[in-house]
């Protein structure tokens, strides 16, 4: 898979047959184990909600999703149908098998209190952030993961184009209410989610909203 163009593909999976159907409220974390062969769907329920996700190998959480390995292997920066997410050990972790949004970001990272002081104002540091979500989810889970494991994440439903002259832009969202992305797990996965609470920029249209997670067993 080399091209990174938008590739829309719908799924035939029926939510009624999902083994997990969980909605994460706006601004909250979620940690979920997904088995190899299972299919995971993330639904942008109300539109233009950034869902910040890091994947770990459930059997060896030191192995994590690698943005750089994924980008190098697909030769480009956007994720869509057909994109394979690789680990830092160059193992395929998940494959995007359906996508009604068409473009997901790999470069924008997750917001943090500290980066908010840089991007907006020093006094923004007490606002809630994705990094806080990640840290509390990992503290509570106590599975040997911590801050060093907070590597560059996937921002599902976010559009962060790079221009030909090397600028990083934050374009209007390509997502809309009900759009979803579906991934097949190629290994047992631990998925760390922050349903982004950022209020300082339009990544959530200034209104963070819930996101729905569904998991199906292999047929």
């Amino acid at each position, binding site marked *: 898979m*080399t*091209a*990174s*163009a938008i590739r829309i593909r719908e799924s035939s999976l029926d939510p009624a047959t999902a083994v997990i159907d969980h909605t994460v409220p706006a601004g909250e974390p979620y940690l979920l184990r997904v088995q190899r062969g299972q299919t995971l769907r993330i639904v942008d329920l109300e539109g233009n909600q950034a869902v910040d996700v890091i994947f770990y190998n459930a059997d060896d959480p*030191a192995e*994590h999703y690698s*943005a*750089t390995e994924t*980008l*190098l292997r697909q*030769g*480009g*920066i*956007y994720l869509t149908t057909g994109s394979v997410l690789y680990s*830092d*050990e*160059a193992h395929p972790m998940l494959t995007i098998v359906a996508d009604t949004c068409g*473009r997901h970001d790999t*470069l*924008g*990272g*997750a917001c*943090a*209190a*500290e*980066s*908010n*002081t*840089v*991007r907006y*104002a*020093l006094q923004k540091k007490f606002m809630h952030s994705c*990094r806080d979500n990640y840290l509390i989810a990992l503290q509570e889970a106590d599975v040997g993961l911590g*801050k*060093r*494991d*907070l*590597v*560059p*994440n996937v921002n599902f439903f976010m559009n*962060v*184009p*790079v*221009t*030909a002259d*090397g*600028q*990083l*832009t*934050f374009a209007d969202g390509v997502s809309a209410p009900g759009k979803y992305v579906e991934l097949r797990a190629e290994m047992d996965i631990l998925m760390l989610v922050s349903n982004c609470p950022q209020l300082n920029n339009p990544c959530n249209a200034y209104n963070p909203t819930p996101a729905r997670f569904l998991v199906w067993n292999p047929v």
Partner: protein
Amino acid sequence: MEAHTITADTPSSAAAVDAPELWRQFAPDLAGRSVLFSELIPGGGHWSYVLPRGTTLRIAVLEDGANLSAVLYSAREKLERYNMPDSLKAQHTAHYTRGHVLMSDMGRALASITADSLGWHDPFGLLLDDARMAEKYGEQRYQAFRNGMFRSGRTGLLIEIGKYGLGKRDLIAPVNFFSKVTVDDEGRFAYVPGHAKAGDFVDLRFDMEVILAFSSAPHPLDPTPTYSPKRVGLALWRSGPAPADDYCRAFRPENARALHNSDMLYLA
């Protein structure tokens, strides 16, 4: 009791250490500045330093087509490290040049680019590993080739950060100095050949005490068919920390805040 006397065997002069002023070969304009050390990095070589705040590293291209994959960690708290996404989104950039700041995940400036002859250094963090290196160039291992063996950027960086107790999980996306990768409308990468020429250089000022680790192995998208990593020269001098009227502070308000956050670590 007999007094000790200094004999001819006792090292007594600086000449006993083979630390020549290499910088005079590739950065003669630094004469008059307080150069602290200099080094020639062979192609594919790797090394690391702990470097204090207020020093500046001249990184000089000695042969056309050089690449230097570099990672930075706070020496004081190694959990604090260079963060590619935070740096790119804060500065709305997908390339680095003079004025840009390499930011940590804690909202601080680790280092600032205070001079640059090139105008573009690659921030996407792509790194050559052993498997890709073998697939692309074949194998050249130590037993047959001694120090002419092929070295990958990933292996070099893992060796270096290992010296500080950092492991694979801690290997972050590096900055690829001297390389240029553009992105088209579809998101596809294009490596720009012939970007860095001998004589090009970048100055990196350290705004915190950092661990800097690097490898001069080729960029993984470099289409050159043979393994031919290029040499790089390094010279560190005492520049002092960023002044109030610093170019990088004024470059963007985000950079002023990141440098402010670093200053707040050095109040004493």
